[in-house]
């Protein structure tokens, strides 16, 4: 598999990369096909319980995924301008701006998706999501189903929160059944739960192979593969593809190969969403210095493993942006220790208030506990106007120098 990466030969259809890429593309194709058949399709926020549409057999598209794709292909600024012309402030999350623009213009060369008949909104990643979907629902005049999962200021999820969220899961299922005529069956739910568990276990196992030195993969891979974890976790193909991914990483460990090209001199954890418009610049800035980003919170975040409905409810209350500083910190500390991470690189993401709003303090606490250096750079996941390559280079260089001096190197 590593040869494939090195020689850039046509992708092997049996490779995880090919399979995962196909699942991500098929999601749009399948949704369009469902729409063409006259079925109702939804737009869905990324951490909405995918088990619900999956069990009901409803096709959904993920605006955040689309926005990331549009941004990576260079369309971010163009779409942001469309919504800004409508009065949206350029301080609003760029995913929201891109999607609100798309909902209006309905066609982009970068990535299209079918128009929605309903919206599935879950705010366990941010409350910005509620505002964004409210406006979509109003503009498109379609129903919005909300599952409110509040930010949890405590380490553990309280019984009151589980009860509240569970009641909303039930309500959402009922609303969707009435709206679409599809039926929830326990049997199908069990199946989805099993696939979701299998996919999650394989993902956790694959990402944990970073514990080896050198790591069998370049962490930027995770940024691409996570789309499948978010959107297709409950599908059989996803489980199979993730298992292939794990197998490939294991093979790399045995053969000493890696999808990280060049010598792995340093290992870092990357914090935040990728700068999609500058994926190449951000990745080259690391690679050229022999830095492998071996892990990110995504490695841990998408392990949705649970045994029953209540377990599922709890899992959705425990996603990264819904947990308090101490819990979020400890998750990162664990990843850092298990994967022998030497530095922390933080993306202060102009789009994401919640992710960046207490990251400075969390970084200090992580750095102190793990005795590693940390630096931050300013950027944006999708609006290209908020990133400076020069600043990025300077910060990464600074991080490299500290990591080198700690090793007693040159």
């Amino acid at each position: 598999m590593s040869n494939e990466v090195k020689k850039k030969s046509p992708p092997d259809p049996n490779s995880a990369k090919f399979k995962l890429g196909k699942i991500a593309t098929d999601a749009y194709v399948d949704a369009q096909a469902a729409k063409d058949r006259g079925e109702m399709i939804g737009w869905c926020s990324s951490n909405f319980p995918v088990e619900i549409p999956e069990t009901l057999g409803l096709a959904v598209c993920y605006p955040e995924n689309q926005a990331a794709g549009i941004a990576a292909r260079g369309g971010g600024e163009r779409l942001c301008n469309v919504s800004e012309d409508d009065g949206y402030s350029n301080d609003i999350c760029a995913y929201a701006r891109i999607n609100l623009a798309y909902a209006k213009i309905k066609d982009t060369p970068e990535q299209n998706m079918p128009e929605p008949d309903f919206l599935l909104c879950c705010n366990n990643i941010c409350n910005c999501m509620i505002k964004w979907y409210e406006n979509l629902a109003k503009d498109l005049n379609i129903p919005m189903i909300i599952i409110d999962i509040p930010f949890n200021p405590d380490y553990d999820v309280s019984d009151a929160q589980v009860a509240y969220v569970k009641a909303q899961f039930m309500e959402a299922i009922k609303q969707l059944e009435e709206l679409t005529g599809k039926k929830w069956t326990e049997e199908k739910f069990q199946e989805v739960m099993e696939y979701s568990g299998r996919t999650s276990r394989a993902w956790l196992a694959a990402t944990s192979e970073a514990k080896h030195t050198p790591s069998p993969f370049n962490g930027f891979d995770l940024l691409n593969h996570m789309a499948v974890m978010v959107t297709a976790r409950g599908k059989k193909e996803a489980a199979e593809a993730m298992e292939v991914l794990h197998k490939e990483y294991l093979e790399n460990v045995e053969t000493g190969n890696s999808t990280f090209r060049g010598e792995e001199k340093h290992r870092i954890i990357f914090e935040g969403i990728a700068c999609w418009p500058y994926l190449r610049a951000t990745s080259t800035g690391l690679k050229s210095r022999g830095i492998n980003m071996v892990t990110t919170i995504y490695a841990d975040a998408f392990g949705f493993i649970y045994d029953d409905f209540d377990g599922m409810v709890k899992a959705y209350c425990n996603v990264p942006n819904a947990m308090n500083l101490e819990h979020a910190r400890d998750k990162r500390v664990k990843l850092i220790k298990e994967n022998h991470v030497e530095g922390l690189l933080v993306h202060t993401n102009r789009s994401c208030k919640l992710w960046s709003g207490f990251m400075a303090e969390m970084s200090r606490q992580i750095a102190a506990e793990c005795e590693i250096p940390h630096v931050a750079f300013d950027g944006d996941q999708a609006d290209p106007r908020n990133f400076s390559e020069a600043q990025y280079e300077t910060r990464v260089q600074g991080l490299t120098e500290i990591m080198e001096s700690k090793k007693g190197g040159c």
Partner: protein
Amino acid sequence: MSGLKESLQKFHKIASSPKEQLKNYLAQDKKVVICAPVYTPEEIVHAMGMVPMGTWGADIEIKEAKTYFPAFICSVMQSVLELGIRGEFEGASAIIIPSLCDSLKCLGENWKSSVKNIPFIPMVYPQNRKADFGKAFTKAGYERVIADLEKATGQSFDDAKLTESIAIYNEHNAIMRQLSDCLNDYPEITAVDRNAIFQSAFYMEKSEHTALVKDLISELTKTEKTANNKIKIVTTGILVDAEDLLKILDDNDMQIVADNVASESRQYHVDAKPAETALDSLSCKFADMDNCSVLFNVDKAIAQYTVGLVSKYQANGVIFVMTKFCDPEEFDYVMIKKACAEKNIPLLLVEIDRQMTNYEQVRTAVETFKEILK
């Protein structure tokens, strides 16, 4: 007339000296709990025999808070944290911070490390607040606040006391609604004055504030009504307390005849109604709240509400005062703008933050707006 002046001065004095107020209450051996925005359950603090003191930050330079918040977090959050770090709340027993927007969630998390001597008490509100499960979750949130307050202050909670406090708060709500309407007949009361009346409410025990407002209303009704030639404005936003901005409105003969501002009338839209227990009554009050950017409403009722205020008060236009980096408001702005356009209601967007010193652009914008309204 002097009675009126004196009455107004009281509001101005209190509005401009929250720290003095805090000190006064502490000197009277009262415990004070700081209440961050928005919809913090002050009634609970009050019922436990303490003084709830609101804060919406201050117009100060941000230094220390910068090491916690990135620059793109609103100045309300930045300055509340800055005040905390600087010791401006010294002596307070706790701070309650609800988490109704993403920036508020972050304030609580940052508070824990930066202001260690004032315990952070979270209030987690549901967005799906109207259904029974939502009310139950609000109630559980209140119970948690009570437990944390008991631990932090040693005071205890009693549902019967809460009934009394709710009555005091309901009375205050009513008087504030009455005041807002009453002021419309008295164009000599400036926008600066009006703000002082609203702002002072956060720094006082509510029955004291009610008494002051009643005095003011009675002084007003003693004065002779004069012709009102002012331009009638509805304001909407989170915070409209910048004196420079308010003076610009006054200089341009504008009168705020109604508002849907979070730190002003949004506080007083809804009363708590009787329920099985006082705590249930408070939970239902939150469920009934609406027309606010931080409260989920799929119909975007806030847009029609704004339009409704304009027609109810025969206003000439709307001024949307945007607190920079406030994303809930930034989303609602687009909907309010559309709703106003449909009804041909002129709307002006003014963006402010607490560190702003130069209001010349705002002045020009307001002057131009005035021309349109004429």
